[in-house]
């Protein structure tokens, strides 16, 4: 582990040693895991933290006065501080633990939306959105008589700035956009989007599910109003994520769910709510996974996102160049500004066939519409095959992917 630290370039073999699952064989082949945009694998420090919690200090948090409860509460709250740093937030009161990005978006759509939206108001999303940053807004818009507008994209998935500017008006109350597309990897110009939306008095939420693992996030510098991410895509456990919201907004918003933990005082007639961030954390939270999110984020920080990014950029460039050499292959979202995701279609071959035949060679990619059906319709394709890279992937694994695809072509054409 020592040799990973304080290095400008990433020693991928040392990194791989930290991920026990990478030693696995699948169908007689060494696992080549290229589905990191769906979820990343977990380093040993994360697995150990889960075992340690359940073995040594499992307890419910915040209320107990016994030792175990104090230890669990301390560890849980330490993650909140680590997430605060990870996102560049001003205060831990602005960090609300969630199950993941989807819950974060739903929380804002319901809590902020129910209190603030009215008939005729407009919500703007981009064409690149995952269903989770689309459906909650459609639901709240329907309830309130508000309208959802979609910013078009180019054939390569680039945000249409002119169309966005034309859509913005005093009717625009909220803009929610994906920071980096899960389906194509394309990065949206969020800084500019936030500035322009704020200029008409609209709030902005960023779906950080894909960006948080690759890009440096500074919510204060971005000046976004809300930012949601999932821990499991940043080498952490599933079911543990966070929502950032500006304090004044969160304070003014009504609670999302009612229950224990989120209350200050309850009578049979009325309830007063707890302070931030607990007002939004009803019930016993996902304590173990939230605690184990801290070592995941620390692991990323100890290596350095810049170092990881340089490694992933190399993988992306190599994969993109090699894929383009395959006959009839087209990369979707072939732009300069993207995270390490490469999505492609192959002439005359259905993505599902590609996925099945690669799986038989131990190669895990994602195929299908990537929970972005409207985007696939916009691009006039049933779906794509997507390889997404993480810090532990190697150039040799890209070679395996290319060899695997050559076999797919041989078998299917």
């Amino acid at each position, binding site marked *: 582990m020592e040799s990973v630290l304080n290095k400008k370039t990433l020693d991928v073999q040392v990194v791989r040693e930290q991920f026990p699952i990478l030693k696995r064989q699948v*169908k007689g082949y060494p696992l080549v895991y290229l589905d990191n945009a769906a979820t990343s694998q977990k380093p040993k420090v994360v697995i150990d933290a889960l075992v340690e919690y359940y073995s040594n200090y499992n307890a419910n948090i915040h209320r107990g006065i016994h030792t175990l409860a104090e230890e669990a509460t301390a560890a849980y709250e330490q993650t909140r501080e680590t997430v605060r740093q990870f996102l560049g937030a001003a205060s831990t009161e602005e960090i609300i633990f969630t199950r993941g990005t989807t819950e974060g978006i739903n929380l804002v759509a319901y809590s902020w939306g129910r209190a603030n939206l009215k008939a005729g108001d407009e919500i703007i999303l981009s064409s690149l959105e995952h269903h989770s940053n689309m459906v909650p807004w459609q639901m709240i818009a329907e309830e309130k008589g508000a309208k959802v507008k979609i910013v078009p994209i180019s054939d390569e998935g680039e945000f249409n700035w002119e169309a966005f500017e034309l859509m913005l008006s005093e009717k625009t109350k909220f803009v929610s956009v994906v920071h980096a597309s899960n389906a194509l990897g394309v990065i949206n110009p969020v800084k500019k989007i936030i500035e322009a939306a704020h200029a008409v008095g609209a709030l902005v939420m960023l779906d950080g599910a894909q960006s948080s693992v690759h890009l440096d996030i500074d919510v204060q510098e971005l000046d976004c109003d809300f930012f949601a991410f999932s821990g499991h895509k940043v080498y952490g456990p599933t079911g543990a994520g966070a929502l950032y919201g500006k304090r004044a907004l969160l304070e003014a918003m009504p609670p999302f769910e009612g229950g224990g933990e989120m209350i200050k005082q309850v009578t049979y007639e009325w309830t007063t709510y707890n302070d931030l961030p607990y007002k939004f954390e009803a019930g016993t939270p996902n304590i173990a996974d939230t605690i184990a999110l801290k070592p995941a984020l620390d692991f990323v920080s100890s290596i350095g996102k810049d170092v990881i990014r340089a490694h992933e950029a190399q993988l992306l460039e190599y994969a993109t160049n090699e894929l383009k050499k395959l006959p009839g292959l087209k990369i979707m979202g072939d732009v300069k500004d993207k995270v390490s995701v490469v999505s492609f279609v192959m002439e005359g071959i259905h*993505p*599902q*066939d590609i996925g*099945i035949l690669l799986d038989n060679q131990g190669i895990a990619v994602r195929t299908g519409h990537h929970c972005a059906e409207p985007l696939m319709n916009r691009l006039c394709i*049933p779906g794509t095959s997507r390889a997404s890279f993480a810090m532990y992937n190697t150039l040799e694994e890209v070679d395996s992917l290319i060899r695997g695809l050559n076999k797919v072509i041989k*078998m*299917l054409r």
Partner: protein
Amino acid sequence: MEAVTPITAIEEEIVDEFSLFDSWEDKYEYIIDMGKKLPALEDQYKKEENKIRGCQSTVWMVSEAKDGRIFYKADSDAVIVKGLISMLIRVFSGQKASDIVSADMKFIDDIGMSTHLAQTRSNGLRAMIRQMKLDAMAWNSKQ
């Protein structure tokens, strides 16, 4: 009426054929070949109501009953799925509804294709079998 090979006998034939293959490539090449040979479904049937839900690829299926037996036609935009459908049609098409409904489909496990029965969004084999059995039940109740 012409004698129909029972479902179990067809299943045994398929298991025998697959036992000749010793690599996954051979197995899948055979399925792909079956897929390519399955006659395309006429365009008039390729409509929303004939689509089978639960598949990552699009699968259309239609059935009809003749003289107490059920006949299936199907198509897909993905060739492996088409091969699997072709195999199901070979087993079920022309059989009695009651035999289709009660078939245990164990042969899918025997030929090493049970991974396609996994309950995930991407594998449609389970959904196809379910739809074929539902169609058989529906025709049965009309007779």
